[in-house]
């Protein structure tokens, strides 16, 4: 009894010393219970320096804390392991104060050494961490140094706007350090899938309980986590969080319909209909919000300005041509047929859910075959040949190949719908799905003379909250400046003035710290892109979240978003039963 009392007092003392983070959920919940979600594939590793795919990072992000992340309510930076920060030196220096009393699950304190060590390893070219780009700014390193036990400092070569939302995992130095000093291979071998769960030391809300390969992964609450709810109760609420690994989207639906999964996002209209039907029939105690938002991923058509055929290269450079192609895009039909009636047309490069930067006030070249014909006539394509395709005075047929990656049904359908409409308008579009890796090769590998061997490609990029993270797409020498690419990382040989403007805006956007000014820059950026159409955007798939009623702490219909998801913090999600 005495012993217990002492233990209790020690715990209280610990609490008093600590600086817990208060997680403001949608409501105050109750501890205990379990959550079941599904995951499309197995994690590959639990090591944050090795992980490259979301199936791994989705799990790892519960194990290792970030310094800062963004608030699910305002999408502005918010402290995580850092309690506060101070920007000095016109934004060239940021000083972070760490949360005192925060502990790893093995009882060791989380300190500045862990942060600096993690930064060093992420930045090490021999380790090839996926977060390495967070430590280089325009080729120059971002320097991290320790000020004292609970203070770290980052020095930037130039001011960097997204400095506070770069999320890289912080790992326990006392575990990873010794391995790292023996060489990168030893470090990479840590925390693999065969590491016993008890040996995985975490500093996040959950820790590994068990993992059945190919079937499920179970997380359990980390009792030494540094978070509380508004009333000061420790979080996470959940005792147990199961990721069911279900590779097949049909099986995922079947599980949700059977009440075996708590959270679900229906990918298309057919599946929405099935969920709705079951809820309405009273056989599933849940909710679904069809078309609540659109996903952040984008799909667009890119034309190759570095075409081997000078006629095509020149044609694709004409803004009138690209506008004509945009006018041939039947986005309504794409939404109805390809996405089962859900989703929204997209006109500009910033994903629609990124509300702090997105603008709808851009030039829209809507479906209008007559206008397209007019534009093409202005480019010299006035007559049709006997097959019904447009030709110019030199007898050149308006023809190009369009490729997309085979196996992606959504893109295949969008491409087919575009090709159909183009053919009706007299543009000979030869649509072919090709292998993904081959597609990437064509897109990113120019030959020595600077030409690339494709005409047009329909592809997508995963979008995110921060436009500065897509600088590789928009800056002139970016590796994904796909429409007009230079050789060996140089600028393209021949650039249009709007490309230079985009390049300038992107560089400004990354280094401007004032949020209002940043928005202005990115609004202008969207307008320039939408008007000149270096990438012709298609349609954005809908985000149709669904949940069972037994789960609490979730957003309401008007709050869910494709960026944040169904809940503000996993810490404050709870089971009602």
């Amino acid at each position: 009894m005495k012993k217990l009392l002492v233990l209790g007092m020690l715990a209280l003392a610990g609490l008093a010393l600590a600086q817990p983070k208060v997680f403001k959920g949608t409501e105050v919940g109750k501890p205990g219970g379990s959550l079941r979600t599904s995951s499309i594939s197995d994690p590959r590793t639990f090591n944050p320096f090795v992980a490259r795919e979301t199936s791994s990072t989705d799990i790892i992000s519960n194990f290792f804390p970030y310094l800062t992340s963004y608030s699910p309510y305002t999408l502005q930076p918010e402290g995580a392991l850092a309690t506060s920060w101070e920007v000095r030196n016109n934004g060239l220096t940021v000083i972070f104060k760490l949360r005192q009393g925060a502990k790893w699950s093995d009882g060791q304190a989380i300190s500045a050494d862990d942060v600096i060590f993690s930064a060093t390893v992420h930045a090490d070219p021999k380790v090839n961490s996926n977060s390495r780009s967070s430590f280089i700014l325009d080729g120059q390193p971002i320097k991290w140094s320790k000020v004292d036990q609970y203070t770290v400092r980052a020095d930037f070569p130039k001011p960097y706007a997204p400095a506070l939302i770069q999320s890289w995992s912080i790992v326990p130095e006392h575990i990873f350090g010794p391995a790292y000093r023996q060489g990168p291979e030893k470090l990479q071998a840590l925390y693999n899938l065969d590491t016993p769960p008890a040996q995985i030391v975490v500093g996040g809300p959950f820790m590994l309980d068990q993992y059945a390969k190919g079937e499920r992964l179970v997380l359990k609450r980390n009792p030494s986590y540094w978070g509380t709810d508004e009333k000061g109760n420790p979080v996470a609420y959940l005792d147990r969080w199961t990721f069911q690994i279900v590779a097949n989207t049909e099986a995922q639906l079947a599980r949700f319909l059977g009440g075996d999964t708590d959270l679900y996002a229906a990918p298309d209209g057919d599946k929405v209909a099935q969920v709705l039907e079951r809820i309405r029939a009273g056989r599933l105690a849940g909710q679904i919000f069809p078309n609540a938002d659109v996903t952040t991923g984008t799909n667009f058509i890119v034309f190759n300005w570095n075409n081997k055929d000078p006629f095509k290269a020149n044609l694709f450079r004409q803004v009138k041509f690209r506008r004509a192609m945009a006018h041939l895009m039947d986005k309504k039909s794409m939404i109805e047929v390809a996405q089962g009636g859900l989703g929204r047309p997209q006109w500009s490069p910033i994903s629609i859910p990124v509300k702090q930067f997105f603008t709808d006030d851009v030039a829209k070249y809507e479906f209008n075959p007559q206008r397209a014909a007019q534009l093409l006539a202005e480019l010299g394509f006035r007559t049709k040949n006997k097959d019904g395709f447009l030709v110019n005075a030199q007898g050149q047929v308006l023809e190009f190949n369009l490729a997309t990656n085979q196996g992606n049904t959504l893109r295949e359908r969008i491409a087919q719908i575009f090709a159909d409409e183009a053919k009706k308008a007299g543009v000979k579009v030869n649509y072919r799905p090709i292998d993904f890796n081959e597609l990437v090769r064509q897109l990113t590998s120019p030959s020595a003379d600077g030409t690339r061997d494709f005409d047009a490609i329909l592809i997508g990029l995963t979008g995110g909250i921060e436009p500065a993270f897509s600088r590789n797409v928009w800056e002139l020498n970016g590796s994904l400046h796909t429409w007009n690419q230079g050789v060996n990382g140089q600028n393209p040989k021949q650039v249009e003035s709007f490309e230079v403007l985009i390049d300038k805006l992107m560089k400004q956007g990354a280094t401007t710290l004032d949020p209002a000014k940043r928005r202005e820059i990115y609004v202008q950026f969207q307008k320039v892109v939408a008007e000149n159409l270096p990438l012709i955007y298609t349609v954005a798939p809908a985000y149709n979240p669904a949940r069972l009623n037994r789960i609490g702490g979730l957003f309401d219909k008007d709050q869910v978003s494709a960026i944040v998801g169904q809940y503000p913090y996993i810490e404050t999600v709870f089971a009602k039963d």
Partner: protein
Amino acid sequence: MWSYIVRRLLQLVPTFFGATLLAFIIIQLAPGDFVTRLELDPTQTRESIASLRREFALDQPWTVQYAKWVSGVLQGKLGLSLSYKADVWKVIWPRILNSMVLVVLSTLLIYLVAIPVGVYSAVRQYSIGDRVLTVLAFIGVAIPNFFFALIMLFVAVWLNDTTGMKLLPIGGMTSEFVGGVPYLQAPWWQRTLNVLWHALPVVLVLATTGTAGLIRVMRGQMLEVLNQDYIRTARAKGVSERVAVYKHALRNAVIPLVAGIGFLLPGLIGGAGLIEVVMAWPGITPMLLDAISAVDLYLVMGFITVTTILLMLGNLLSDLLLAWVDPRIRYN
């Protein structure tokens, strides 16, 4: 006999290297490599992509990569999986075990069904029963097994829906909770039962294809034996039909079938393929498909190595068994 075994084992060595070399070349012929996928990630720079290629030695000529791999295999290491950054053997071994569960169960089922049915079909050749069984068997062969798996899945969903109980599993190999406790904490017999329950529909699908073929073989064997002189002699001597068929004929007809089990095993490993994918069984094929599409070179090679060895040993085992039971075959 021992020298025969040794000779056969030695012959396997060049076959093994030929097979792995061929597989290696085919994988290398495909466009792109493990890193290609990352090139579309806007946060990756050219330099970090190049650095990754160096780390994985993907910038080396393929002959060097193969030589390195062979050198590893000779030292008993299957290499590191590119995406798992872990020993390939550790990554694939649990999957192989899972597939083996299916293979063993379905093989058992196939033999249990095929032998009696085959005997019946032979003894009652051209009877109505024989014809019906023949057609049924052929339907089993004719139905594309992934299609059958789909139907099975639907039946499971429909049954569970109409009864409101969990009669049949919908994909997977184990339940999260068994008898109210997490799977791993349940007693071994409950865990076994749970796996068997999950395997049931998969094994049924898997067995249909194999059974049909074996029924035909059994029927043919039995017919041949029944036509042989010693059975006639036995009958002439007044041995009852039952004894003639079940004691003398069956024993001889069944021997080659049992000996042929070695051929069946590796075939089934490949055959479980698409069914594992459709029914979400955590076996070899789903992971192999993933590895191929991600161009995880060494993971794919690991699978090829293991299945190749299994195949070769299976064939050898069959040959030995056959030679052992059939004195007409000599070791040469």
